[in-house]
């Protein structure tokens, strides 16, 4: 397409194989030189038909699939699934299991943000913070391996509780990790968070105003960065969160960045990591004794009905809409993921940005392909 002056529009394919798309995503980018006219995401490369699979597996055997909906925040998906089935069944989860779920969830949130922030830095050219954050994530992976046997897809939550109780000494190890974590965040902060170049790459770039964010269904750190003060853990509390005290970082305040820009998203995630550490400390102190599995019927056959259960995942609201027809397999399971909404916004934010900015936007929105495609 040539405009009046004779300049052509280049169509670039940031194709499924690209070092900086998160997962197998594709963007068709229409640019005028460096400045984009439009960036259209093409998704579906990682569509595995998980929702169809849910209709063929039993409620318990679906949990490993749930982990793979978003393998970086596996605990949240299985927790949401367990919550949905528990609500249909009317099963109560013992307190110890709830607190263990919270500990696992917050550890998972930290691990996820390690990757998220690391990838933002890496996509913007700073390779070192990624490795440092991965070093910390290794410790978390080791903790999970000790807890439930897996390092990435944990298969941890069960309908009615969790699969394994904390082994001996595990809680002290979590405590030691959390104790050291402040220093890690301080190191990260000193290394990269206020680096002039990084800030300039992200300040004012890809601004999502609060109204657009709500209208497009943006959730989680992206929504908070846009200035909307909303966190499911605090505002619609579930699991063991009602007793715990933590701050919810909202973008655009205290002078760090414009609300809704890439830097605000960075800041919000960084602060969330600290708050997760705080939550873990409180959860460790509040862990009661008791069973880790509730009373369940022999076969899990929820009565006819439907439920929507959501948790505040690392990327935002991760919810499942579960329809039961009274049999032992779900009738319909629909997963609502935050990356889906975030991807749908990219076409809106992209006009006028440069290609280098698109990379920053995708990275800070923390979109990940498996969640978009399921």
């Amino acid at each position: 397409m040539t405009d009046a002056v004779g300049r052509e529009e280049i169509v670039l394919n940031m194709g499924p194989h690209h070092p900086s798309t998160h997962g197998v995503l594709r963007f068709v980018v229409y640019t005028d030189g460096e400045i984009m006219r439009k960036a259209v995401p093409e998704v579906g490369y990682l569509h595995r038909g998980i929702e169809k699979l849910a209709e063929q597996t039993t409620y318990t055997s679906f949990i490993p699939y749930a982990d793979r909906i978003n393998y970086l925040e596996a605990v949240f998906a299985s927790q949401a699934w367990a919550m949905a089935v528990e609500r249909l069944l009317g099963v109560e989860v013992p307190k110890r299991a709830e607190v263990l779920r919270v500990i696992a969830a917050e550890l998972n949130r930290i691990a996820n943000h390690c990757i998220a922030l690391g990838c933002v830095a890496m996509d913007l050219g700073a390779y070192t913070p990624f490795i440092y954050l991965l070093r910390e994530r290794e410790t978390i992976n080791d903790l999970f391996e000790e807890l439930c046997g897996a390092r990435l897809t944990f298969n941890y939550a069960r309908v009615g509780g969790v699969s394994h109780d904390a082994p001996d000494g595990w809680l002290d190890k979590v405590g030691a990790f959390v104790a050291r974590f402040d220093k890690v965040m301080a190191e990260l902060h000193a290394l990269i968070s206020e680096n002039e170049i990084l800030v300039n790459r992200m300040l004012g770039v890809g601004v999502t105003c609060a109204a657009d964010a709500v209208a497009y269904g943006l959730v989680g750190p992206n929504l908070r960065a846009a200035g909307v003060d909303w966190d499911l853990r605090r505002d619609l509390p579930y699991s063991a969160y009602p007793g715990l005290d933590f701050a919810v970082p909202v973008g655009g305040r205290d002078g760090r960045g414009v609300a809704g820009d890439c830097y605000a998203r960075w800041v919000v995630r960084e602060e969330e990591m600290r708050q997760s550490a705080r939550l873990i400390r409180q959860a460790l102190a509040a862990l009661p004794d008791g069973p880790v599995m509730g009373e369940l019927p022999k076969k899990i056959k929820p009565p006819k009905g439907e439920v929507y259960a959501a948790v505040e995942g690392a990327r935002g609201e991760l919810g499942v809409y579960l329809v039961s027809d009274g049999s032992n397999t779900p009738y319909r399971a629909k997963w609502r993921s935050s990356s889906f909404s975030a991807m749908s916004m990219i076409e809106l934010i992209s006009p006028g940005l440069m290609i280098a900015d698109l990379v920053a936007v995708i990275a800070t929105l923390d979109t990940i392909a498996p969640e978009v495609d399921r």
Partner: protein
Amino acid sequence: MKEIRDALAERLGTEIEWHEDLAGDPFAVVPPGKWLEACRAARDDERLSFDFLRNQTGTDVPADEVIEVVVHLFSYKHRHAFVMKTRVSRTDPVADSLVPVWPAANWYEREIYDLLGVRFTGHPDLRRLLLPEDWVGHPLRKDYARPESYQGIPTTRPGKEDR
């Protein structure tokens, strides 16, 4: 929930059915002709203020010969949630698009079209989202038969029994 019932009953009268007796969340069913109007009311009415389209999806119910299009709504202002459905015919599934009401509906409706075959009138860009453009069939339907091959690639492994 009572305020939601009252506000919507005021707008739609008897057209809206309320289902509150099943396990899980209560929901309301609206006829397809009133779908757009009901959703607009849900967003615009002061008592409702459902500004957040949390989820929009479809369910194939061959037993009733319908495909249900369901929306989960939430209001940040009033902090209440609501589930609304419409049932479209299975043989010719057409519904109104909610894109004018919530821009978030854009991709949700594309996904429903892709996986269930429901066409949304008024949608700016209704094409397949998750599956390739030349895919045949709508997988989430209960009577979906997996094709033998796609572009020459067989969909089963030799010797493996189909589930």
